[in-house]
């Protein structure tokens, strides 16, 4: 049996719906249609009344999820694309993220964001917004890179008492496969060493983990052993695991698909520099998308985002080659 990243997301939701009567799914086209990417296919039939189509009202969708959470429900919100969460930005960062701190009443909502670029998707169906939400206190931001994490972390996201921004990468939906659903996964907040190495550390999240792994394989042929750290959660960042990796390798490259100004790569570099400056043998490097909107045409898009080629080039630079 082969399970895709997308299957894992659907199965995690099915299990959550089965285990907890307070779980429901709310979003555009999620009910009988099964969602724009089929992440909720069949769930409306299996769980009548608990998978609900919403009007095209991202603000109201998240606002009502907050209200439902106050009353003891555990809503899963599906944004059709991560980009559209901009319309719900206010309810996410000002309503849901402040709620527990202001009132003492937890706000356990999960907001699924189909994230990241794919060929031909253009500026408004391609964004990676994890840095944006990680900026705000009161939110947890997950960026699963594997089928196992897509399943295990989504289940955790639904159980967690806080609002969780769940960034699932569209490029991984159909191509990433596993043999079975995991029995257990690492705890939330722990990074994973995706590949062991000793010459440089590449810290990445989501689809960039796979680009980094491919770059590491290429560099291995040249005799370089590159360690790849999969962040798993963008917030909280597992600084300890990153520092331990840098302690082994002395060199750091942080990679993310989001825009270059600030964000996760800047945060990773800043933490390593402030807490582990003495571990570094070379200036740490960052690699993000280019500082333009995400382009439509595949020729432009491939050059806009970090790839295994640009990661390999950055690592060579980091190694002084």
């Amino acid at each position: 049996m082969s399970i895709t990243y997308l299957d894992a997301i659907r199965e995690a939701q099915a299990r959550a719906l089965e285990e907890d009567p307070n779980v429901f799914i709310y979003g555009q086209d999620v009910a009988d249609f099964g969602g724009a990417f089929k992440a909720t296919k069949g769930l409306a039939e299996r769980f009548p009344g608990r998978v609900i189509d919403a009007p095209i009202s991202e603000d109201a969708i998240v606002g009502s999820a907050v209200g439902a959470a106050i009353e003891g429900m555990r809503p899963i919100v599906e944004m059709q694309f991560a980009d559209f969460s901009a319309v719900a930005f206010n309810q996410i960062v000002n309503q849901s993220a402040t709620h527990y701190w202001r009132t003492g009443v937890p706000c356990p909502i999960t907001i699924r964001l189909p994230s990241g670029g794919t060929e031909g998707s253009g500026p408004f169906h391609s964004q990676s917004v994890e840095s944006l939400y990680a900026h705000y206190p009161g939110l947890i931001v997950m960026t699963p890179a594997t089928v196992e994490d897509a399943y295990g972390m989504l289940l955790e996201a639904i159980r967690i008492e806080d609002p969780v921004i769940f960034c699932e990468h569209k490029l991984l939906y159909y191509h990433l496969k596993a043999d079975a659903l995991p029995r257990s996964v690492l705890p939330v907040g722990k990074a994973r060493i995706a590949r062991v190495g000793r010459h440089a550390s590449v810290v990445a999240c989501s689809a960039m983990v796979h680009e980094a792994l491919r770059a590491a394989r290429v560099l291995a042929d040249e005799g370089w052993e590159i360690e790849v750290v999969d962040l798993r959660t963008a917030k909280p960042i597992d600084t300890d695991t990153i520092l331990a990796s840098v302690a082994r390798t002395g060199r750091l490259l942080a990679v993310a698909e989001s825009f270059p100004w600030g964000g996760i790569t800047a945060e990773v570099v800043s933490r390593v520099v402030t807490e582990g400056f003495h571990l570094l043998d070379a200036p740490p490097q960052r690699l993000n998308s280019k500082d333009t909107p995400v382009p439509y045409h595949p020729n432009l898009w491939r050059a806009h985002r970090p790839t295994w080629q640009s990661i390999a080039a950055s690592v060579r630079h980091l190694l002084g080659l």
Partner: protein
Amino acid sequence: MPSLSPSPTASRWKGFANERERFLAAYRWMILARIFEEKIAALYRAGKIVGGVYLGRGQEAFSVALGMQLDQAHGDLFAGLIRDQGGRMAFGETLMDSARTYLGSVEGPMRGRDGNIHRGRPTRGMPAMISHLGTMVAVVNGMLMAKRFHGRVDVVGGVTIGDGGTSTGAFHEGLNQAAVEKLPLVVAVADNQYAYSTPTCHQYACADLADRAAGYGVRGYSIDGTDLTACLETFHEAIERARRGEGPQLVVGKLLRLAGHGEHDDARYIPARKRQEPHGGDCVALAREKALKSAWASAKEIDEWHAQTQERVEEAVARAQSEPEPNPFRESWHALATKHLAEGTPPAQ
């Protein structure tokens, strides 16, 4: 004022024996709101309040008529906004919660983390507003959807807004969502003629905000928001219709904000003649007139209520003032309920 709380039994007067009792109960909530807010405004002028003070002067009848006729014990909801001191207390917010939040007492529901009108007890049907207008409609929708999930379809959610707030996208999304989901929601729009300094001619172009109701597929009402009897009658009907499953109700009350946007604002942009125009009156004074004219209360009784209320307010404020303020060294500085996942700043050194 627990003695004024109606019993949950449904009746023509929503638990009150007759029109007189209901009217006087509402009037007394209005007096409490007015006196409390005057006290808070005086403290503000004396520099005793941290942050802003935003008054509901002129809107007490409209606010109380909704808050008082909802039933907190039954599971109803009331999401008050900045001019709902009256409605909040009539629904179930205690005077101490109000006083403590304004005065920054650590004993209050917001514990100094938020202040003034940004307060609530969400698990007791009183969500705490954020400043971004229109957003609370969807929050109340979600609370009602949760109640429905839990088998409660006989509860009603009240949410308030002003004419300015109706211009937001959030308000549109929320009201449309409530209509689509046929939720038992009562939206009270206090059309108080000014959004901060902006007159309604720059806010909306329809003849009456209630005209929008038909466009959403909800029932609309347009009333004189300074007339307590009209407010009580209309909200009674709207609440009962919502409770019967007839979907959202939109009640627009025409009135005039008898204060600045906040106490920092002298509102010189509001011409004095506005007070002589229709809906420009003071609902508390009008309610007093009606009570006297109908021989429902004597001037002496009303004076006594004022004196008793003043005493209660002074006591509550004095108590809140004597309570500790929040201590930054005892603050957790963590915004997550899931403590072990919080990336908090360590306690201040």
